[in-house]
């Protein structure tokens, strides 16, 4: 298994099985896989499609850093993460995180840790496209929005 391939940014559709298979091994009895898809409605607002942008080399490094952090917190865990960029339609897969561990509890905890960290440190951005506009979503809590597609006056001052 090529270590480099455990952490990947891709423009192509993501195969859940392929990412999961990277972490299956004789010593591991439990694998959790998180699949993030494009949801149609967020707080009642209908999304038409999303666009993801990334600072690719740094994003790959940060994904690998998350894998490293997981290995330190859960020594027997192996992590693989693939994140897609470009245009994604409703229900398409944006991210797949697979974590294998000898015992199941760790696999759930480590996987949840991975998605939280992705939303904190990995330089990937999404732009929501709605029927009535588009905006780059500004942070993990989705509280920072730019309804006109660019920062408002208050954000620029």
């Amino acid at each position: 298994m090529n270590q480099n391939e455990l952490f990947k940014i891709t423009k192509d559709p993501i195969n859940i099985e392929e990412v999961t298979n990277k972490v299956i091994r004789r010593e591991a009895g439990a694998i959790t896989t998180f699949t993030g898809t494009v949801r149609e409605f967020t707080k009642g607002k209908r999304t038409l499609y999303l666009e993801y942008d990334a600072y690719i080399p740094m994003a790959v490094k940060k994904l690998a850093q998350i894998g490293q952090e997981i290995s330190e917190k859960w020594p027997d865990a192996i992590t693989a993460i693939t994140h897609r960029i470009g245009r994604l339609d409703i229900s398409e897969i944006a991210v797949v995180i697979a974590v294998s561990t000898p015992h199941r509890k760790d696999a759930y905890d480590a996987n949840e840790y991975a998605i939280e960290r992705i939303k904190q440190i990995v330089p990937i951005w999404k732009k929501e496209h709605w029927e009535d506009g588009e905006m780059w979503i500004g942070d993990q809590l989705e509280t920072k929005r730019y309804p006109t597609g660019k920062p408002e006056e208050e954000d620029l001052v």
Partner: protein
Amino acid sequence: MITVLFFAHLQEIAGMEKLTLDVDQISIKSLKQKLKEEYQFKNLDQIMFAINEEYATEDEIIKNGDIVALIPPVSGG
């Protein structure tokens, strides 16, 4: 010479993916000031900076040949 990369809405504001600055060395703080004064960026308060693909603090110095990136709050996952 340093290279400055823009992503997401900053790329749209800048109207370009990158900028090359003919400076030998400059702190993140000074670069921020320069971007505000000489370019279209009015507010960079929420923006993180990375030097050669690692997050950097305000007082770190960008050197000749370095690649700097402006990192708006991320929203992957």
